[in-house]
């Protein structure tokens, strides 16, 4: 298990006026999927690369499990951290199996166990080893190549995985499938993931934490719901689409529209407080009732009403007129 702490991290590149990263501080708890979300040029890749010392902060520090990265040997640090990039970067003269095995090879592990592990890794990322082991990267599709890239990053069984827009070059269908599989894999491995993306949908789908960056500054860090329910800046509000009704329905919990009182027909329709607005609205549409009782731990905590949800969404800037975009 691995946690990351950014402490007043600033990075200046020679010749550039503005810093690429300016005084960024936040924590990534162990086992979390933290998304670095921002437009291009926001510094998210620069921030990511400071974690495995592909670049060091000009001031401030990055700590892994409480130890500043600059006090750790860069080579051995990188060997303990998985790294996946959009361009995949498989070596074209090596087969799929050799590309995965290169990670144990560089630490001098040529044991038979490392060979067997390659097959297990390919299996894990959804590539049948018998079919893919001997292929060259030129014989793979973009999605297959990125699966190999992921297998390679997992080869040393790192507790921390850095991913720089890994699915950015894939078509929408492949991208969604890879996102689902990453979540599946993460469920069993429980690694700490730091994941760069400019795709808000991807950030919301994968992240338990999202750090929003703009022009090198940290705008906000929080859960998807926190970003949506309480955007800290107008930039965050615009970026996450706080006025996007569908996203609000999908991510905001019913408790954001909770009203006190008990509905007369509450016993008929209940909804757990952990649900989001979307299932609540769908339940209302199905049952024809405009009021639901919200329950937690078997107790009624209050009600949500269609009018209440509408008020709550409007209050957050959601446009529910027909011209409003979803």
């Amino acid at each position, binding site marked *: 298990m691995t946690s990351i702490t950014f402490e007043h991290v600033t990075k200046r590149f020679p010749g550039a006026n503005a810093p690429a990263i300016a005084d960024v501080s936040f924590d990534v708890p162990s086992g979390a999927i933290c998304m670095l979300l921002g437009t291009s040029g926001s510094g998210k890749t620069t921030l990511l690369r400071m974690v*495995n010392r*592909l670049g060091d902060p000009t001031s401030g520090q990055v700590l892994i499990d409480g130890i500043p990265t600059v006090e750790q040997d860069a*080579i*051995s*640090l*990188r*060997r*303990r951290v998985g*790294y996946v*990039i959009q*361009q995949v*970067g498989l*070596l*074209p*003269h*090596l*087969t799929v199996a050799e590309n995965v095995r*290169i*990670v144990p*090879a*560089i*630490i001098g592990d040529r044991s038979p166990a490392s060979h067997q592990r390659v097959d297990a890794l390919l299996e894990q990322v959804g590539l049948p080893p018998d079919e893919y082991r001997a292929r*060259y*990267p*030129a014989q793979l599709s973009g999605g297959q190549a990125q699966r190999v890239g992921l297998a*390679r990053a997992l080869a040393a069984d790192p507790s921390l995985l850095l991913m720089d827009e890994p699915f950015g070059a894939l078509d929408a269908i492949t991208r969604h499938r890879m996102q689902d599989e990453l979540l599946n894999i993460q469920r069993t491995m429980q690694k700490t993931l730091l994941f760069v993306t400019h795709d808000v949908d991807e950030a919301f789908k994968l992240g338990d934490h999202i750090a929003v960056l703009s022009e090198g500054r940290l705008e906000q860090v929080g859960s998807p719901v926190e970003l949506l329910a309480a955007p800290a800046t107008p930039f965050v509000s615009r970026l996450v689409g706080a006025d996007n009704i569908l996203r609000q329905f999908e991510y905001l919990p019913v408790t954001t529209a909770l009203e006190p009182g008990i509905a007369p027909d509450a016993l008929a329709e209940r909804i757990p407080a952990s649900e989001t607005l979307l299932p609540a609205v769908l339940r209302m549409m199905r049952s024809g009732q405009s009021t639901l009782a919200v329950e937690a731990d078997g107790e009624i905590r209050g009600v949500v009403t269609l009018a209440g949800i509408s008020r709550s969404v409007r209050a957050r800037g959601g446009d529910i007129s027909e011209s409003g975009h979803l």
Partner: protein
Amino acid sequence: MSYLLDAGHWSWSDPTSIGRLLIDHLILTGLSMMIAMAIAVPLGLIAARYRRLYLPVITAAGIIYTLPSLAFMAALIPFTGLSSATVVIPLVLYAQVVLIRNIVAAIDAVDPGLVDIGRAMGMDGRQIQRYVILPLALPVIVAGLRVATVTTIGIATIAPLFGVRNLGYLIFQGFNTSYKEQVMAGVIAVSALAIIADVGLLLAQRAVQRGRQTSVVARG
């Protein structure tokens, strides 16, 4: 063809037999190419890393390349006499321009993204050379070696003028005695050697290029 097919011209005991001359030609060319590579590889690596050195190095090699081979070798006689050195030194120097240019081009052509991912995986400098730069640059370096080797086999044909026997001996000897068959035998043997070397190194180039469908071949 009769000269080539005559078993008497392949006798192993005769130092001027085709077989012996072929071996001599191979040794002279092979030795020249080995020394040439031993010089060009470090020079190429240095020029690829310190770009300011590239232009002076490649200009010097280019100027040497323009010297006529006969004159160059003749000019060395006061220093090295009639010996292999008189032939090998120009051959080594001529090869430099092609070899160095290809080595630098090969290293330049290595995708910096792959070097970066190598670093990110935790490779040290030596491992990046070994696992990333060298294998990716090798096909282009071998392509340069191929061009230089074929050229060297050809130029080496004048070696007999400086007392070094090889397949060129058949040509010069045939001229002197107006023995047309012998001249032809020499021409065919040298050409065959050049073609075999070319094809052999092409196969080597293919072998080090495995996995890559499209080939990048820089020519000198």
